[in-house]
């Protein structure tokens, strides 16, 4: 008996000793999770995973169809064009610059319809609200493989471009313009209650949209030479109108399963992008979720149900460049089961 007690004490002691280690692991796990958070920078269902780097930046892998809008200011005024990436052809550009001349490159993506550039450093993006894609703005430019310093937007074109379609190359550092809402879903645990929804049905989320009624204009002022604040953003023309919806790109794992079967434990779905808090006013947001209902034998009972709920974010100031991890707890009502004949039989 003493021996048994000693074994239990040993186990307990080890558990106590390991506890800080697990705590540490938890912390690292959090860090790892950050690394794996998606930066939904694609159009359509494309998705790129960013890997956190030591210098506070992550390498960006472009996706097919990506368009960056470019404003290049130089000796002969401003040149407006775009960088375009295709899976087959790689990067291409219509930003034609004079050889040997110095330019400042101001870049953002994805390209929006209502963008303008004025003066030497003011980029205006209008009618921003929610977005499927991360909206990014350049904070530094350098020749290929040179160190990119935030606040330095200058670049000198090769003085002797060669080839049939001569090109010169730049490296970029970008920063976020929007805040991100990263969503996790769970459903109530039915326990052993045979009448609880989770013991009768399963729900698979097939599409999630983020909506807001708030839109605004961002005026981005590039601060050359200021590595601490390469650009500053001034928001204006804040308006409330009809809801604007933006699809949230699901994580790769969710895509592979054609959706997310929600369980009592929280599971990650994906992130959507929204304008941050402007002058103390946080945008009102909603989630519109499309889902299918299955019975416990995985037979599809209903397809394409839609539910929309207002979304709360506890922090008042949502700031650009920040991910807000939001947990959504799903509480199914009897409205669903009352419509299904087999469940009525079961209930009564």
């Amino acid at each position, binding site marked *: 008996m003493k021996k048994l007690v000693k074994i239990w004490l040993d186990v307990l002691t080890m558990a106590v000793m390991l506890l800080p280690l697990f705590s540490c692991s938890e912390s690292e796990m959090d860090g790892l999770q950050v690394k794996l958070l998606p930066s939904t920078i694609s159009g359509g269902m494309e998705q790129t995973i960013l890997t956190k*780097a030591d210098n506070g930046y992550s390498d960006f892998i472009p996706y097919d169809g990506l368009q960056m809008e470019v404003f290049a200011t130089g000796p002969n005024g401003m040149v407006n064009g775009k960088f375009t990436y295709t899976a087959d052809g790689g990067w291409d550009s219509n930003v034609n610059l004079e050889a040997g001349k110095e330019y400042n490159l101001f870049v953002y993506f994805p390209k929006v319809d209502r963008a303008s550039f004025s003066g030497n450093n003011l980029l205006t993006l209008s009618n921003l609200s929610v977005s499927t894609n991360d909206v990014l703005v350049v904070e530094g430019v350098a020749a290929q493989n040179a160190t990119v310093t935030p606040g330095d937007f200058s670049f000198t074109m090769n003085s002797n471009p060669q080839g049939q379609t001569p090109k*010169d190359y730049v490296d970029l550092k970008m920063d976020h313009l929007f805040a991100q809402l990263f969503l996790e879903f769970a459903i109530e645990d039915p326990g052993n209650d045979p009448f609880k929804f989770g013991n009768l049905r399963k729900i698979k989320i097939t599409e999630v949209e983020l909506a807001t009624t708030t839109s605004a204009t961002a005026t981005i002022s590039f601060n050359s030479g200021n590595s601490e604040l390469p650009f500053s953003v001034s928001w204006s023309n804040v308006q409330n109108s009809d809801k604007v919806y933006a699809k949230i790109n699901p994580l790769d794992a969710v895509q592979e399963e054609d959706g997310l079967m929600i369980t009592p434990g929280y599971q990650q779905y994906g992130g959507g992008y929204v304008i941050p808090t402007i002058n103390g006013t946080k945008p009102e947001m909603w989630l519109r979720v499309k889902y299918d209902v299955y019975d416990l034998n995985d037979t599809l009972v209903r397809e394409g149900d839609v*539910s929309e709920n207002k979304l709360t974010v506890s922090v008042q100031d949502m700031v650009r460049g920040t991910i807000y991890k939001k947990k959504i707890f799903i509480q199914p009502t009897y409205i669903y089961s009352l419509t299904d004949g087999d469940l009525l039989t079961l209930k009564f």
Partner: protein
Amino acid sequence: MRNGCKTGSCLFLLSLLLILATGCKGGTERVSGQVAITMSASVKQTKAIISSIDDLKQNHSIGIYGFKEQNTNSANKFLVFDNQPLHYSNESGWSYSPERYWDMQTRYSFVAYAPFTVENAQNSSYNSIIINKIPQYQNANDASALDYIVALSNNPAKTYVENYNKTVNLVFHHILANFQVWAYYEGFDTEFVITGMSLGANSNGQKVPAADAVRSYTQQFDSERADGVFNSGSWATYRVTLPVGDFTVPKESANMAQVANLLVVPFIADENGVAKIPLTIYYTKNGVEQTPATVSIGISAFESDNKYRLDLKFEQKGATVVPVNIQIKNWTETEVDPSDIHNW
């Protein structure tokens, strides 16, 4: 049988009757010894739409006015052709109906024009004919474009009959100017698209006729040649947009292609006629709108029956810039509690 004829005699008489009957049906010189007025046509130069006499024959009808003077140099004039359409066929050449016949004692004056129109042509007191509603600028490639040509002929009937085989020979020339712009680019692959053109300058430049101006053309019958006049009209506020569609510029001079093919009512660029007319070209480069380019077309006036061609060359300088390595600032993470409870 005595009252009849012999078979041979009967056949001879029948044949003679048939020959006479046939002779009365056809031909142009068998009624009362009169000589019919016949027409022929040719085009002096190749041009935008009516590019050859064959084109005129196949695709257009001619309208003709003609009168005769009862006595040479007399003021008594009789209208013989009043906007009479002439149609061409391989069998009959240029023909009209009903036929008219030369009055050998008189002198004739003709003005012919094409394409034929009932609504927009008129004669004016035997002195002239007028063609109305001619747009100042036309895209020659439009199906509705009108490339008017005019011909004159003025002789005693005797001359037509004895020297010209009884035929009025109509030698046409164009009363409008033809302005063509061609383009190509050199250098590395770039998509240049010409999206528009305008004539004239913004201000303090050379005035040109308004884009929507409509002209009338008056041609005297007794001129030595077709040198009619257009009525003067309103002047534009310096610059007019030309009827030109989008055009993707081809690469290399060997592939040079026509951007614009315009019919222009002749005009002088300003009152002094000394200024060179500027042409502004609006274009995009790889889909991006560029600052319009203004070039001088080197003339101060468009003259009738002249073709003007401007060749544009787009040159590329420098190179394009593309990104290679892109880094994105990491997100800052914040947990948001408590959870939302959503009732579905």
